[in-house]
């Protein structure tokens, strides 16, 4: 144990003392917050991303004059007579485009002349404004007056989901659960990859620099491997704790900013979100922040830490085995594939797990240790039976004990074997080779 501690202390200190660790640790959350801040800002405030477009309407029918509603990105002008030639008007005015409306057999036809191919958003925005005018006109013709029309426009639906529990009902929160689930899953995926690869690189360094030869006589291979894995895990944990702290501090101002934007322009948001076939309506995204409180956060956090550590141990051991089997990093490709594939697969499949968190596919994927750290994170916020959580944790523990054993067997031989890259058959033989 003392040796493992010495080794992990070295792994931890050499990494944490590096300048790049400090820089990455401080910079990453800033970058993440900035990154998402920008995405949120632009998706809620489309007009910043798009230039304001002016469109001259040449309306033969006179049905639309002064009736088309301006949006944040488009404004309609009616300062030209309908008889003008659209091309001449466009060239002379130098604006974005000219919308000409002609009547053919009493039915209006529309054409937009512009100097560039208009984007889908622009087109559908114009179309929806035109449709609105035509629909209003039809309704008025059927005797519905303008006041009623306004009331119709004001109708909005927002479903509050409730979950049936033994104690009664509980507020549902699909939006938050989805986000929390994805966030947890992605973090675990990210950490396993980032630090798993560090384990592998560390092993290759020791092997390539013949450091192993110096220390293996006083340290058992298993101690060396476990020391490395735990040391790097602690680095990851340190980094994670700092990040959580920083993100919490920094995301305060950012979410206020986002909420302000949402409040300021509900209509634009509705329009743009509708155009994008958005996942969330703005009303819902506002409630995201309220819903956070209704989740079982201690359970989620506890489970996160468990799957974070066990998932990392599970994969970290495999990465160590790969590192020990090869002489340099270029040779790792072949052995990395079977390790990275299930990880990438879990992230890819998590979308369908979210759509149906309690399907049998979701259930089984959260039992298999290869995918359970990621899949369980996605499922947990939706609430799953305690028995499944326990079963999954048990599988995970068995899983990492198994991979640590497996990796240890390969490691002890691989770390002192130089030259030709081993085949899978040889690796298999190493497993059962007597020391």
């Amino acid at each position: 144990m003392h040796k493992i501690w010495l080794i992990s202390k070295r792994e931890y200190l050499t990494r944490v003392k590096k300048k790049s660790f400090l820089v990455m640790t401080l910079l990453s959350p800033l970058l993440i917050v900035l990154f998402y801040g920008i995405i949120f800002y632009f998706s809620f405030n489309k007009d910043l991303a798009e230039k304001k477009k002016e469109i001259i309407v040449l309306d033969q029918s006179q049905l639309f004059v002064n009736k088309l509603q301006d949006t944040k990105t488009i404004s309609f002008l009616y300062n030209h007579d309908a008889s003008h030639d659209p091309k001449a008007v466009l060239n002379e005015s130098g604006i974005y485009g000219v919308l000409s409306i002609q009547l053919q057999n009493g039915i209006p036809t529309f054409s937009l002349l512009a100097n560039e191919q208009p984007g889908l958003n622009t087109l559908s925005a114009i179309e929806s404004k035109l449709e609105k005018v035509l629909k209003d006109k039809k309704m008025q013709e059927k005797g519905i007056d303008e006041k009623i029309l306004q009331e119709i426009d004001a109708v909005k639906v927002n479903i509050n989901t409730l979950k049936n529990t033994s104690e009664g009902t509980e507020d549902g929160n699909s939006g938050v659960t989805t986000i929390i689930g994805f966030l947890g899953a992605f973090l675990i995926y990210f950490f396993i990859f980032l630090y798993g690869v560090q384990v592998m690189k560390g092993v290759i360094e020791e092997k390539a620099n013949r450091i192993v030869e110096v220390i293996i006589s006083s340290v058992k291979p298993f101690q060396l491997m476990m020391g490395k894995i735990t040391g790097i895990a602690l680095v990851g944990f340190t980094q994670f704790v700092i990040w959580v702290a920083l993100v919490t501090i920094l995301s305060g101002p950012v979410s206020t900013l986002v909420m302000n934007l949402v409040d300021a322009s509900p209509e634009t948001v509705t329009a743009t979100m509708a155009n994008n076939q958005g996942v969330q309506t703005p009303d819902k995204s506002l409630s995201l922040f309220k819903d956070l409180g209704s989740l079982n956060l201690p359970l989620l956090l506890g489970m996160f830490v468990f799957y974070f550590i066990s998932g990392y141990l599970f994969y970290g051991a495999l990465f160590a085995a790969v590192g020990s089997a090869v002489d340099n990093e270029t040779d790792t490709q072949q052995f990395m594939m079977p390790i990275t594939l299930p990880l990438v697969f879990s992230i890819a499949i998590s979308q369908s797990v979210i759509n149906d968190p309690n399907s049998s596919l979701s259930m089984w994927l959260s039992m298999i240790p290869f995918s359970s750290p990621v899949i369980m994170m996605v499922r947990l916020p939706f609430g799953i039976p305690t028995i499944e959580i326990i079963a999954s944790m048990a599988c995970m523990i068995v899983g990492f004990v198994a991979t640590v054993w497996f990796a240890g067997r390969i490691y002890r031989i691989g770390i002192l074997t130089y030259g030709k890259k081993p085949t899978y058959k040889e690796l298999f033989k190493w497993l059962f080779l007597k020391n």
Partner: protein
Amino acid sequence: MIIEIENLNKSYQNHQALKNISLSIEKGKIFGLLGPNGAGKTSLIRILTRITQADSGVVRFNKELLSEKHMYSMGYLPEERGLYKKMTVKDQLLYFAELKGLSNAIAKEKLKYWIDQFDIKTWLGKKVEELSKGMQQKIQFIATVVHEPDLIILDEPFSGFDPVNAQMLVEQILRLKENGATILFSTHRMDSVELLCDNIALINHSEKVLDGEVNEIRRRFRTNHFEVKYQGAPILEESLFKIISHEEKQGIHKTILQLEGPHKNNEIIQNLLSKNIQLISFGESLPSMEEIFIHAVQQKSGESFNHA
């Protein structure tokens, strides 16, 4: 005897690295393990340091079967550098010392001595990758001996050293020997250890060719060759001796003679003095380790020895 090896065999997938090797290393002496590249020296060392296990055979350390506890009484300097490139010299030395079982405080204490000896105080904060090859070698050497092992195994210790540092290392090795340590040297540069080693073993193609005390071996392989340096007319062959080689540089002749039959040195000197030459030096030319090695290998393979 600190190490006794009996009938050691080791095979890798497609070749035998060690064939029936038996040898022993005397306590407190410097032992040279000599042989060309690929002869099996490193395989043997790896068994001694328990990096690998022999297929058959016995290794005893201080009369006990070699086991894990003996590892703390050994220090091993591998042929290729085994240091963390991104770690500072100080952290690195401390880490290795602690892995070898020293407590933090004792490790620091012992390192102080070596830091002084090699005068590396100014280098302590530097990363290993910033050091020259020779400096790295010094660090590696300190890491090898800091826990004061009874047996110090040095695999090609002089590679990467300039003559000044090599001399420094020789002095340290001799001092370690004075303090009672046993040193096992492994090298393919046979001449480099002739002066240092008390005993040697020659290994070729996985087999031991010969072993024993250095001076005894050299006497065993003496060829009755004498080297004469002189000025004047070149010596000609006569009944007393044959001439093996002759060269002349800036008026000074160097001739290697081989005596015919049992003659005393005095007889030859008298004979030489009777010639019209100015004698500069005269001495027996013992074969170099390299020559002995070639001779021994050829003897072993049953061929007669032809002097080149």
